[in-house]
Structures are given as structure tokens and as C-alpha cells.
């Protein structure tokens, strides 16, 4: 597990910055809630009558005036987008950076099989995602309790689980792409995450584009749907994770045979 340790060390700063940023924004939102709650009657009406904007963020389905509704939309967007960016960046860079930064020659002339390198790098990415989500989840629960609201354990857990799956899927897809790249990867990672996010918004707005939910992982992280249905859409989650697995398999197939230049 030398490489896992090494990767975690290398990614430490980025990890801390992303985790701190996401957590900070989420806590800020949660702590703003009590203040907004009083005015929520009006705000809630306003938010639910903004036409397609309301639909785009799923605010037509849940009450923005309750903690759960508020959390599903606000915090969902922060963790959804922030987590997606982090996972995509982690996945897209982890293999390609060795060639981009010319360290591949160092790493791959050590007696470590390519498959082992891929596995340890994958573990390091997944570990970082698990850790980020655990920290954010813990802090969220603590701050909900701190503002005197009851913690909606089941819904909260399901929402966070959905975001975790989303990050794993994106990381898996980007990991696969990473094996094919030699340089310039960050743009692709951010691009994929952003594209997926907007695909979901399009799917929300236009009924004829609803099939996009099958493509974007944001389809199964919709807080409103999770709260309403009381469960995750297993079909979408499984399909999404399958995309991630395909990415990972592609990474093994490609990287084990790749010419390193």
C-alpha cells in the first residue's frame, strides 16, 4: 500500500481545500436556515412560482420552507456540484499526471505491476471520496442538531449516499479516461462534471429530454425525488455505477498495455 499512502500525501492539500470549502458552504447554509425559516412562507411561495427555474432545481416538488426541503435544494447543490468536481478532478488526473509531469518513468521502472499501480491509485481516489463525504456528513448532522432542528436521519443518509454514488460514478468514468490521456486533463474532468450537472437541469425542464436522467448521475441525486419517494431510484443508481465500473475496467485494459513516453 506504499502507493496509496503516497497518493494520499500528494493529494492532501487539494483534498483539504475541497473538503473545507464544501463543508464551509454547507454549514453556512444550514446556519442561515433558522433566520430564513421565519420568512419562509413568502420565500417558499416565491421559490415555487418561478416557472422553469423552480422545476430545474426540483423546487416544485418539495417545500423549501422545511429544513428537509431547504437542505435538499441548497446543500444538495453544494455537495452535488462540489463533490462532483472533486471526484472528477481526482479521477481524471490520477493516472495521466504521471506522464504529464514526467514521473511515469520513475514510477513504472520500479518492480510494481501496472495492475497494482492502477489498483492502488483507484483505492486512493475512493478513499478520498469516502473521507470527504464522511466529514461533510458528520458536520452536516452536527450543525443541524446545533440549530435545534431534528435530524431527518433517513432522508439525510439517503441523499448523502446518492451523492457518494454520484462521485464514485464520475470518478470511475474519469479514471477510465485518464488512462488514455498523456497531458491536459483538468479541463476534461471539469467539463464532464459540469456537463452532467446541466444535463440533469435540462432533463428537469424539458419532458422530452427526460431520458437524459439515464445518462447523468445527477438524475438519481435529485433531493426532491429522494425525499418524496423515501428511497433511491435503484435502477438509475445501478446503471450509473455500471458506467463507473466500465470506466475502471477500461482503465485496467488500457493502462496495462500503454506505451509510456
Amino acid at each position, binding site marked *: 500500500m506504499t502507493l496509496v499512502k503516497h497518493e494520499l500525501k500528494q493529494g492532501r492539500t487539494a483534498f483539504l481545500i475541497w473538503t473545507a470549502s464544501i463543508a464551509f458552504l454547507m454549514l453556512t447554509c444550514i446556519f442561515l436556515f433558522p433566520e430564513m425559516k421565519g420568512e419562509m412562507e413568502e420565500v417558499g411561495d416565491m421559490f415555487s412560482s418561478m416557472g422553469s427555474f423552480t422545476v430545474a432545481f426540483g423546487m416544485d416538488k418539495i417545500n423549501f420552507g422545511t429544513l428537509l426541503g431547504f437542505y435538499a435544494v441548497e446543500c444538495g447543490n453544494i455537495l452535488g456540484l462540489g463533490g462532483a468536481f472533486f471526484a472528477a478532478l481526482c479521477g481524471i488526473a490520477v493516472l495521466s499526471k504521471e506522464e504529464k509531469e514526467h514521473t511515469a*518513468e520513475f*514510477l*513504472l521502472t520500479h*518492480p510494481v*505491476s501496472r495492475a497494482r499501480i492502477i489498483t492502488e491509485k483507484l483505492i486512493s481516489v475512493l478513499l478520498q471520496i469516502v473521507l470527504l463525504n464522511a466529514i461533510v456528513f458528520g458536520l452536516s448532522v452536527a450543525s443541524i442538531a446545533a440549530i435545534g432542528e431534528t435530524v431527518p436521519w433517513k432522508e439525510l443518509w439517503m441523499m448523502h449516499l446518492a451523492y457518494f454514488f454520484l462521485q464514485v460514478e464520475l470518478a470511475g468514468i474519469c479514471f477510465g479516461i485518464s488512462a488514455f490521456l498523456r497531458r491536459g486533463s483538468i479541463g476534461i474532468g471539469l467539463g464532464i462534471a459540469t456537463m452532467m450537472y446541466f444535463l440533469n437541469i435540462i432533463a428537469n425542464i424539458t419532458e422530452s429530454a427526460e431520458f437524459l436522467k439515464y445518462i447523468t448521475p445527477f438524475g438519481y441525486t435529485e433531493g426532491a425525488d429522494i425525499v418524496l419517494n423515501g428511497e433511491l431510484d435503484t435502477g438509475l443508481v445501478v446503471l450509473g455505477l455500471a458506467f463507473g465500473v466500465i470506466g475502471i475496467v477500461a482503465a485496467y485494459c488500457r493502462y496495462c498495455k500503454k506505451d509510456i*513516453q
Partner: protein
Amino acid sequence: MEAIKTTKLTKYYGKARGIIDLDLAVEEGEFFGFIGPNGAGKSTTIRTLLGLLNPSSGSAEVLGKSIIGSRTEVLKDVGYLPSEAVFYQGMRVKEVLKLSADLRKTDCKKEREKLCERLQLDTNKRVEELSFGNRKKVGIVCALQHQPRLLILDEPTSGLDPLMQREFFEILQERNQSGTTVFLSSHILSEIQRNCTRAAIIREGRLIACDSVEALAKTNTKRVTVHGVVDLKALSDIRDLQTAEGSSSFLYSGEMKELLSVLAALDIRDLTIAEPDLEEIFMHYYTDGGDLA
């Protein structure tokens, strides 16, 4: 046993030539030189031997094992010094050296300390602060600290000051005497001549000569310098003719008798006939024209 053996080893990058039909054999325990101009295929050969590149055709065995099938096992006994050693940003030298040892699952602290001391390497510095030469030293320690059976060195002395170069070659000689095979790729001929017993020359992806360094340097070509009025039109086998103020210098590889009979008819004040420089001989290998007559 051969430390390195390639059979018809060929590597194309798409359509671009890397190496073609390379047959190379290096015995265990040899100090072997690998010479060639830039872009001849030296690094391609080395990278294929290390399993970084997949050969287009042909095969390569290192320490008796196929590099394609047993890459990981082969690399355990190999130390590699790349021509441009690059390490992970933000790491200290000692962390890089430790990482290298950990990846090899060996504890070579003692050897590491010894090498760092001999090469005067400050292990507390961060790698991005290091000069080219000092980065090279980190690479050297990484290649040597686990005491491999085979050392593959790609232009190892670039960036090292003369004192360090001497120390480095002393270390290599010691290792070689205790049985380590050294495969030294370089275009500094004096380096090869001083240290290697045998050498191979590669040009445009093909091996054009492989022999003992002595034999490679020994030819029947002479460097002839004459002072006086000279008309050399009658001589056929001359090359590299340089004329300056009444003197002419050229490489001659024809019959000695013919040379003397032509020169005898001329008004010559002075004459020297000498062995050509090693550089001149290799220069001939490098440029078009093939082998020496």
C-alpha cells in the same frame, strides 16, 4: 548468461521509426557501452528493455527473463537512471529515496546513506529546488541503492561536474568488479572508451557495429597531414580533407604504397601519419557511409 538479449527487436511509434531489427547481447558482468547520435534509438531501446514501451515485433530478455511476461520480476534486479530524472513535486530528497526503496520493498538505508555521502547529496532539500546535476544524483542513488544486478544508465553524466563524474564512475567500477552488469548509453566517447569493455553503435534505429571498444577504435584509417605544395587528385580513398595555408590534412583508408608513391612525386616539406582520434572514427559511424574500410 546474458544480462540483456534482444532478438530482432523493433519498435515503431505509429509510422515513425524507433528501432529496427535490433540484435543485442550483453553478457552478465560486462561494462557495456551503447553509443549513437541523438534520435538514433538509444532511449527507445532502453525504454523497451524496461517494459515502458511494448515492442512492435521481436523480443527482449533481461537477466534471462522476457520483459513482456515478467516485467515486474525483471525490474527487481534492475537499476535505471533516466537521462532526465524527474521526481514528485513537493517531496524532499530523502522522501523520494525512501519511496523508491519502499516501492522495491527493500530497506537499503545503509547503502543509501553511503551513496548520498559519496555524492554529497543534501537529502533535506525539496526536489524542485535542485539543480539538474543534483537531480541527477537523486536518480543515481535511486538506481544504485538496492544494489541491482543490472544497471541501465541513460546519459548518466550530463549535469554532473567533473569531480562528481569521477566519483560516479568509481562507484560504477566498484559495482562492476563485484559482478554488476553496467549498460551505459552515452554519446561522450571518452566516457565509453575509459570505462567499457565492449560497445555497440546504433544509427537510425539499426545496430551498425558491436565489438570490443579496442576493436571498434582500431581501423586501418590514418590521419595524414602534409605541408607543402600538394595535389591530391590522384588519391582516391581520402576523406575529411582540410586545407589551410600550405598544409593539408585528411583521413586515408587506401593502400599505403599508393599514398607514398603519390606523395613522393610532390614537393613536400613535412609529413605526419597518425592514428585518427577516436572521435573521428565514431564520427564516421555516425554520419552516412557505413562501416570503416
